[in-house]
């Protein structure tokens, strides 16, 4: 028990010190392969020290988590790389003018509906769909359009529909589809309203 408290206190302190380092003195000076977003750097630090803590307190949980994570990495790495290649192609091939017209700030509320419609056909796995959404953001889509895509992502994807039918029935699938799309639209409209007020 004492070892757990000590390890927890030390890991908590290490997370605070390292987070302060990447947010203040080391900000912008970290190698490119760690990404350029400070919140990502904090997340990497949290990951390292949480694993260190769990490895001390519950080694079997740490081993199981590493095993599960390796399985996830192995099962999806090829698709993540494919998604990043699709994202790279989207940056070069999608006309910025067209993206701005339908998903940019000037598109108004239409951007939300277009975003939800595009999001619906994207895969449910965030590691595959998010890089594609991010690439659309970098070429000129606005916040309501991007969030519309995020809200819609995976709602109508094949594996979710397959699970609807496997565990429930076609009626529940239909109601779930209609309700999630309505929810995505409402969430998008809320974001649009808030961003129109200049808060986002």
């Amino acid at each position, binding site marked *: 028990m004492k070892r757990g408290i000590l390890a927890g206190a030390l890991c908590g302190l290490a997370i605070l010190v390292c987070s302060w380092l990447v947010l203040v003195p080391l900000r912008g000076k970290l190698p490119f392969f760690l*990404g350029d977003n400070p919140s990502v750097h904090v*997340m990497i630090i949290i990951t390292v020290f949480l694993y260190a803590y*769990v490895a001390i307190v519950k080694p079997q949980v740490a081993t199981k988590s590493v095993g599960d*994570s390796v399985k996830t990495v192995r099962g999806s790495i090829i698709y993540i790389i*494919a998604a990043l290649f699709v994202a790279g192609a989207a940056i070069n091939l999608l006309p910025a003018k067209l993206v701005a017209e339908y998903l940019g700030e000037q598109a108004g509320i239409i951007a939300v509906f277009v975003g939800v419609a595009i999001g619906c056909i994207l895969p*449910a796995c*965030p590691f595959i769909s998010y890089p594609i959404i991010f690439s659309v953001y970098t070429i000129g889509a606005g916040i309501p359009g991007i969030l519309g895509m995020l809200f819609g992502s995976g709602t109508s994807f094949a594996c979710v529909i397959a699970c609807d039918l496997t565990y429930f029935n076609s009626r529940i699938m239909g109601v779930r589809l209609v309700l999630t799309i309505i929810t995505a639209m409402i969430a998008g409209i809320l974001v649009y309203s808030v961003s129109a007020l200049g808060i986002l």
Partner: protein
Amino acid sequence: MSYLKKIFGNDRSHMAILFIAVFIYVATLIINPDVTMSCINSSIGEIQKLIIPIFAAMFLGGLMKSLLTPKTISRFFGSSGVRNVFTAGLFGSMLPPCPFASYPLISAFKDRGMTLSAFMTMLITSTMVEVPQIFAGIAILGLGIELTRIVFAFAASMIVGYLFFLYGLKQKTKLV
């Protein structure tokens, strides 16, 4: 063969992304090789920037999956029996984003007699809010966009859940 199966998995829907990527690059290579090269350069830049954060997010997600078991979650949120839409929404938000992992749990709650509105709210939030995706969201999109996504998706789910609560009781026998 089994090694290839481990890499490619069984999910044919994910393979669509692979085919789309191959198709785009082959098509641009035929039409305009210069564009293909700039696409490859952009992609390599994206991979270099995102691959370590994505790995970190996956490992953090793996740890959370081990620590936050359904038992732990139900201890925090209370989830059995007839509960309100808000509790079901909170519980659904915490479930794993993959429907193959979350649907068996939701199905178990439904079988235990959960109300239709709570069941639907749980289904909606498990598809829309997906708090465990927060690590992927932070790694790729940043904290601001990810938090905005979660807050607004949850708010909208609660609105729809409550409206369904007002409407759905009469439909119970037809759906479940």
